[in-house]
């Protein structure tokens, strides 16, 4: 944990899946833990219905370019984004794949891939729309990027006051992601 931390995280999927929100939650981990943080959304016409993606840097050092082209971690929630970004992941990087929506398997052997049927898990647990947060749970588990109290605080800070009744559901989604074990 004392090593210099520098993560370049790319989240990608469809507009409406909560890609930008997921990135915001990650950024708050860094904010709460006193790290340098940047969050950059795609804001082009693709926001209006097509693919959405979001670059998040969390680092011990000041952040240069907030735009991530070669992520150390990729969280991907649709097929087109998988095809677009899988080969850009840095060797040794981690990839988190929503296997409900992505049928492809990664053919690279120099990166760690985690397959989580997040959309299915969300539907089964009455958490429709929170597949992104289930993905986040698995991400936290594997990268150990944040302690449980940081995660709870981040969720509370990110969910707007008018939706505070959703905090519990978000925390449950995190837990499902953290506890999910691949077959």
């Amino acid at each position, binding site marked *: 944990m004392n090593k210099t931390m520098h993560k370049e995280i790319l989240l990608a999927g469809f507009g409406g899946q909560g890609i930008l929100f997921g990135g*915001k939650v990650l*950024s*708050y981990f860094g*904010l709460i833990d*006193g790290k*340098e*943080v*940047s*969050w*950059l*959304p795609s*804001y*082009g*016409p693709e926001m209006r219905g097509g693919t959405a993606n979001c670059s998040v840097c969390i680092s011990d050092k000041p*952040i*240069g*370019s*907030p*735009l991530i*082209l070669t992520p150390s971690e990729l969280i991907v929630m649709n097929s087109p984004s998988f095809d677009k970004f899988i080969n850009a992941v840095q060797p040794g990087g981690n990839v988190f794949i929503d296997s409900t929506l992505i049928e492809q398997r990664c053919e690279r052997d120099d990166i760690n891939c985690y397959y989580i049927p997040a959309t299915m898990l969300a539907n089964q647990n009455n958490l429709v729309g929170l597949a992104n947060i289930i993905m986040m749970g698995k991400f936290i588990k594997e990268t150990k990027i944040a302690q449980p109290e940081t995660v709870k605080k981040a969720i509370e800070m990110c969910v707007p006051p008018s939706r505070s009744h959703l905090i519990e559901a978000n925390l449950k989604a995190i837990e499902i992601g953290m506890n999910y074990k691949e077959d």
Partner: protein
Amino acid sequence: MERNLMKGNEALAEAAIRAGCKCFFGYPITPQTEISAYMAKRMPKIGGVFLQAESEIGAINMVLGAASTGTRVMTSSSSPGISLKAEGISYIAGSDLPCVIINVQRGGPGLGGIQPSQADYWQATKALGHGDFHVIVFAPSTVQEMVDLVTKAFDLADIYRMPTMILADGLLGQMMEPVTFPDQQSINEYDKSWAADGHKNKRKHNIINSLILSPEDLEKSVQERFERYDKIAKEEAMAQCYLTDDADIVLVAYGATARVTQSAVDLAREKGIKAGLVRPQTLWPFPADHIRTASENASSLLCVEMSMGQMIDDVKLAINCSKPVHFYGRTGGVIPTPTEILTEIENISGGAKE
């Protein structure tokens, strides 16, 4: 001080309110719309005015009106919208009125695109409208600096009675970073005895005007303004130097591009190349002295911009073309990468040097 995670556009708007901005007139355009949205939400709560004008031209003339009363006023837009404001900005400069103008640049020319760009450098620093005039141009490169420079922009506008501009870009406007605001911010007050804010028959009329039909009088008023510009050029230029002391190649970049360039400088250092960076924080006045001093022992310079090369002219002038000034740029909304810039550094310096 508490760290907040905010978008550049929102942080800038909040900073303007804390700096005493009481009126905001604007018209929405990507990628700066969050500024308007934030002002729409907050201004009514602090007793200020938010007004979405019928057009950019309407908005800038409302700024002229509000500035005439001595009120702190701001407008914001992105590249095509700034072109529409050009006439009004010239009138404001000609009337010696303070105001703050925000340009969150996007790709051009024409409607162009909506991705980040720095192709309005010439417009901002050389000709933001017709006639002999300047505006002070600030170039933040972090969300925190968007906040810090807005306060400075309002202060210098009041001190020199002229428009000032924050020249940002879509990347800085859209990205979120941690930002802190001072717990208690005192708002500096400046002499506003020139303001047309009601004389109640107790003093002479103040007249706000940019029409002077006598050539001699107009010349005199422009010359007086240029005396102020000389003072500004001497006192207000700002830049930050990074690893320039022993640099053999000095890079020059501003705004979002400076962040990417700084990463490239770090990569070059790891490879044993003595690279450094000068980051102008004001573009007018241009920090020519900083660049001259920082590159005294360098053998060449490399200017990096999100344009086809605009600031490079000022870099060459700063050193009287005494050394080669190379250029690397991407335009149209493409953001350069640290690796691309590193390749350029390697090509110029001929690889690693001890």
